[in-house]
């Protein structure tokens, strides 16, 4: 993994995280874990994403994604008691952070040069 910031270079194939780009839900989950700052358990992550996207999410999909991300080493969980109930609290690992950052960089590179004014005009019909 290179230490340089990927966006600082024009290298067409930068060496990035092997997990990037993350899937849409994966990306949303990692971002939600970051935003929750320590209180990231399943229900909180789901609510955070639903609040931000305004869409209903399947509970099972969120928990399964959290578990998959941990299996990949992008998140790590510990057990804690929150409001009297045992919960898995999630935190982002350095690998997870790199994967998320790389995902964002890739997306930005992809968006580079897109005429946003024209896009909005198109979308407005």
């Amino acid at each position: 993994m290179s230490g340089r910031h990927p966006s600082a270079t024009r290298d067409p194939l930068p060496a990035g995280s092997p997990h990037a780009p993350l899937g849409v839900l994966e990306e949303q989950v990692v971002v939600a874990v970051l935003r929750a700052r320590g209180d990231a358990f399943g229900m909180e992550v789901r609510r955070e994403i639903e609040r931000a996207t305004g869409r209903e999410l399947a509970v099972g999909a969120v928990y399964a994604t959290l578990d998959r991300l941990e299996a990949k080493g992008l998140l790590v969980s510990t057990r804690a008691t929150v409001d009297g109930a045992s919960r898995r609290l999630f935190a982002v690992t350095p690998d997870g952070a790199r994967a998320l950052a790389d995902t964002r960089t890739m997306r930005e590179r992809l968006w580079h040069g897109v005429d946003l004014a024209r896009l909005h005009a198109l979308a407005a019909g």
Partner: protein
Amino acid sequence: MPIVSPGTPPAPVPRLAAALLRLLLPRAERDEVLADVRAEYAGRLGRDGAASARRWLWRQVVASAPALLGWSWRRAWTGFEPPANAYSPGGPMLRSWIADARYAARRLVARPGYALVAVLTLALGIGGVAAIYGVARPVLLDPLPYAHAREVGSFWMPFSWTEQEFLHLRGRIPGFRQVAAYTSGDVTLRDGDAPARLVPGLSTSAELFEVLGATPLLGRGLRPGDDAQGAEPVVVLGYGLWQELGGEPSIVGSRLRLDGAERTVVGVMPRGFWFPDPAVRLWAARPLDPEGQNGSYSLVGRVAPGVDVRRLEPQLRQLTAMLDERFDYPADWDKTRDAAVTPLREALLGRLHPGLIATLGAMALILLIACANVAALMLGQVEGRSAELAVRSALGADRRRLTQQLVVEALLLGVGAAAAGAVLAAVGFRVLARALPIGAWGESARFDWTLFAAALAVAVVAVLLVVLAPSVSLWRGDLRAGLGGARTAGIQGRGGRMERGLVVAQVALAMLVASGAALLVRSVRNLYAIDPGIRTEGVAVVDVAGDRDVPSAERRRTLAALLAAIDALPGVRGSGAALKLPLRGGGNSFDVRVPGRPDVEHTTTFFRVATPGYFEALGMTLRDGRMFDASDRPYTPADSVGFTMSILVNQTFVRRYLPDRNPIGVVVEGGFGAPQRIVGVLADVAEGGLTDEPTPARYYLASQAPWWGSTASLVIRTARAEDAEGVLDAARAVVQRVAPDYAVQEATTMRRVLDRAVGPARQIMALLSLLAGLALVLGAVGIYGVVAHFALRRRRDWAVRVALGLRPARVVGSIVAQGAALVGVGIVAGVVGSAALARLLASLLFGVGAVDPPALAAAAGALLVVGVAAALVPAWRTGATNPAVVLREQ
């Protein structure tokens, strides 16, 4: 609207949804996720109301299911368990199964020989059963394509009712709502300038489709009046023929040239409809003649729903009384006796059952043998793993878990075998459809996905059977004792009782199949040993059919031209024609009156009309008098009075009617109207079926018979026996050139006519012999496996003995004796079972009893030879082993 305050417990979640989620969730996360769902549900209940909350919940269950299943699967497959769950690992039971599957897959890959033999052995059984199921299903299981199938029955004495009888009874047959009469009515079809071709059809009264409850796809069926004399000739087409003629709906109302006359197409039957068999492709309304006396009709009738057609005795008594009142029957054709109605299914398909069931049964036996084989192999594997199993058991694995592993291994083998079996079934399907004696059903059998479903279902059953023996052995044995034994493996070489039991079972099953095949072989040999009284080698047969509305005189002229052209073909020694050939079933009978024998009133003989060359071509033997010759002058219309025909009769005719007289010159009556003078006596010929008792027969000269039918069989004798097949193409060409209005119904050889007369037994014999061969091979593999395992287990034992001076030949002898003993016990068990099996074959047997010592001896001998040969290989290998090598091994 209820408000949920933070202090109150959340509202209960609907039970079913909660249970489904609980089922799908890994154990460690179950409470957390369900608490999340409950909290959200309670919030929504307070905010949006009960209905909305419930809808949300069910959306959650449905949308979460795939993700949750994937989650469980991934954890089980990868073994990942988050450290946070250290004391409460997740994962449902699926996990242990997946772990076992991985282990079993590794074991099978490490033992490719075992895996391959097991999969192929099972695949043979599974594929065979699935293929026969596929072919037999339309005959044995599929419902008949008629709405009224359950209410329809077929009358007794089929193919013998006359139009006169039917019209006399029509509309007033007690117990029946409607009755239809039908007879075969193959027609020639002229389509444009193409040569005439024959279309298998049925001539029927108008009630047929209503009796059956069959609705046409296009147009209409037949309706009352269509079968009246002088009505417009109409025809209903089968789906296949309609497709061949273009498949346009506009065919309804159009006209087709059938049998030289125009007929209007009034309807098309749907795909899948057949009656009385799938070969028939059109149904024509037959103008019924109240005086028609041609006895070739069959009757089918429909009763009221809920009435059993087999329970109509009182009604049939009334019916026979009606017949008795009006008609006077000869003893052989007395319809007032033995009146009975057969359910339609049995009448149409019943005769096909014995052969199919015998083949299906033999194939099921092969599958059982294959299962026993694989079970024995697996048992050997379990025994070979006894040390490993003992260690696992000592470490805490319970028997349930060890059995589960066996089941998983068997399931893996089963899946492989089902896949291979399905491929085998697909390949074998067509071959079987042709090889089984099911006629048109074989031609119309279609291969479809149900065959794969069948293969899978059979595979599951096979897996359960296979796993039975090893599991029992696992539950019975003392696993830990194996741990002690492992250190001295080889010295104590007993055990394997169940393995031997399986081999005995295999041999017994193989004995069943082999003895069944042997019975049929003997039976078929007996059938071929019957002398039909005619030459069957070097004779070609061409059946032709012409238009119906052609005068007999013209037919005779065409026929003479045809025969002359055929005689001119290279390699042809002579030819002739007859209305009906021997060995093709009875029929065509006339009553006979013999002077001085008033007691033979009301009896009939076969009548056969032929050209002079016919007798010579078929090699019929003259016993007395003379053959037809030039002195037998042709009949002319002017001869209607005072003309005496010349006839030949067979020996049975003489024996029965003129036992004490010289038959030559005797004049008999009955039949064509004119008196008939016997000029010669022929040796008996199997004019009906091959196995029929000899029946009196009269032979007429074609030129003297007042009429000649629209169909004829040409017999062509070739100079060399092997040319009979080769002359057929040339003969077809002659028919097309000389008689373009004639269609060739069938071009075959007399040998094949004989083969067909031998009947289904011949085809079943071929199949069963093949299966018996397969059973022998599988049995040999089983014996080989068990004996090899036995020899291996006692290897050290033998080595010690040989080291102490035992001759290696004794080692070989002892091991072979073990194998032979197993085969012997199996044969004895098989002999007992084969008596029961033979009853199943009874209707196919001729001249052999169900328990036939030579057949049993042949089957037993074959099994013994194969068994000893299979045991010899491992025995010889053990005998040739250097004891020093074995003793140094441990």
